[in-house]
């Protein structure tokens, strides 16, 4: 079981993450609707895992959130969970030591959170 923070500006998507990961036995300790809020929650709650969307205007996007948290929380496991299918985003996330999954791959997300 992991302590998890989830972040998505789409309330439906956020609710799904909270519900599914909770039912999977994890402790979803925080839910953020923006990048700034995600960074603040992670720094405050020190979770094991962050699941973050990519596009969350007007604040920082998921990759920028990863970049910022890598400096202060290098041990944090991060999954970027987005509808954007762009190879450059995959590479950017991997370079920063984060996983990149497409939304809809719920089973893959569960595996990634367990393995992360």
């Amino acid at each position, binding site marked *: 079981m992991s302590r998890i923070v989830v972040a998505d500006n789409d309330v439906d998507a956020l609710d799904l993450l909270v*519900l599914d990961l909770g*039912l999977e036995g994890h402790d979803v300790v925080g839910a953020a609707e923006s990048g700034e809020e995600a960074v603040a929650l992670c720094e405050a709650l020190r979770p094991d895992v962050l699941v973050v969307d990519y596009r969350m205007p*007007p604040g920082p996007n998921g990759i920028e959130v990863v970049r910022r948290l890598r400096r202060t929380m290098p041990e944090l496991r991060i999954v970027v969970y987005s*509808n*954007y299918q762009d190879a450059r985003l995959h590479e950017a996330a991997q370079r920063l030591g984060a996983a990149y999954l*497409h939304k809809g791959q*719920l089973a893959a997300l569960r595996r990634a959170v367990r393995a992360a």
Partner: protein
Amino acid sequence: MNTTRRDRLVIGGAVLLVLATAGLVLATVLRAQADGTRALERLQLAQVQQLAKSMDTRMAGVFESFNGIVSAGPAYNVTVRDPVDKGRLDELQSLNPKARTGFFLVNSGGVVTNGTLLRDPSSVGSVYSRPGLDAVLAGTPAILRVGPGITTAQPVIVIAFPLRAPSQKVIGAMLVESDVSVESAFNEEVSQLRSGKTGEFTFVDEAGVVVASSNAALLGKPLDEPVLARGANGFHRAHGQIVVVEPVRAAGWRSVFRQDVDDFEGALTGPLRSALAYVIVAGLLGAGVALVTLARRLRRAREEQRRLEEIAAVREEFISIVSHELRTPVAGMMGFLQTTLDHWEVMTEGERQRAISRAMSSARRLHSLTRDVLDTSSIEAAGMTYTMEDVDLREEISSAVAAERDLRPDRVITLELPESAAWVRCDVDRMRQVVTNLLDNAVKSSPPLSPIGVCVTDDGATVSVSVCDHGPGLSDAELTRVFEKFVRGRTSTSTGTGLGLYISRRLVEAQGGTITAGRGPDGGAVFTVTLPRAAAPAEPVGA
């Protein structure tokens, strides 16, 4: 190579072509000018040569006729005041009663023995001294240089013939004075000659003194002409003038023509320069017009290219937006269904209901998005059909608002309706689609707890439906673009394809109405749909 650089190269090439053509025209005109000038020089030289030749012939004639006069009859006595010689001279003088100058005889010692029209009678018996007289007394007829006369107060030239005894020995000379004046016989012909404004025909004697000229002021004076001093005949250019010199051999004179170069060449170069100026002006105008046209075409081509690039970028963005927007509800729908299936046993009844409800919400969102995309396609393919009927818009708007209230129980939606029926002719489903879209936009663009107002008004000619919110409103730029395709919401967090208002405008306009965007009193957005009012049906609906 980028577009701007290519455009510059094209314009630069055009400029070079124009310059090369202008250079070619200039060279051709200059060559024509040089050829023309040479032809003019030859022509002027030929004219002066002809004039000199004419004067030469005339002088030869004068000598011949005087030779006849002198040789006719017995020899002159050539003694001072000889009455016979005097009688013969008077007889000759009487042949020309209007003559202004006279004759006189000198003996071999140069003493004047007789004369006509002598200004001073004491001249007879005195020695007449004049350069060139010795040669005459040696037997050669000549025209003596310009000098003071003894038969007139004017300077004169003197035609001198030797007189011979029967033995052919020279015993003296007959001298005929001819005044150097405007009226003189020699000057008469020359004075008529004109060439341009500054052209000047002149005859000078051996000493360079003017004996005849088209310029009367020069008569009897030395001609100040450096070319003449050099003694060179032919065509010359000096001190800004052209100078043509040709000898008159019979008289020992020279014919001189002078003219300012500009005046001389003006007859040729003037028209050529004018022609050149016209060609240059016409060329510059033509080139200017061509360059402007070229630049405009290039600019239009660039604008067209930019427009196409923008369209391509918009399409690319559209594809990106639509694919993202479609994936979001699909992911939501699948996610909630999958988590419900996977955790059915552990989920409470309430959790299952909420999850299925969220899946349904995503499905509805997906339906709405696909409908927008398909509607846009139909509108642009002119494939959209409308079922027009007369309806009381109050009922349709009330129904649409009620549906929205059911869907969003957390939002306050107020509704104002006119008291009497507001009849319009429209497609009911499409009009509800428009109003629902405006309500969705108002919900998305305003704070969660702020009310949304819907107001139907009827001014007798039109019926309007306004939807207003208390969100951030629209900027000036947004007001002008909000009904364009792919323009997304008023907040940067807005989601959607950017097609809703575009579709609404097209639907309303297709039904003969208008849709406008504005700002409410508190700065929120107000969208107003206006349709022409229709007459009430003959019988009440449902009666």
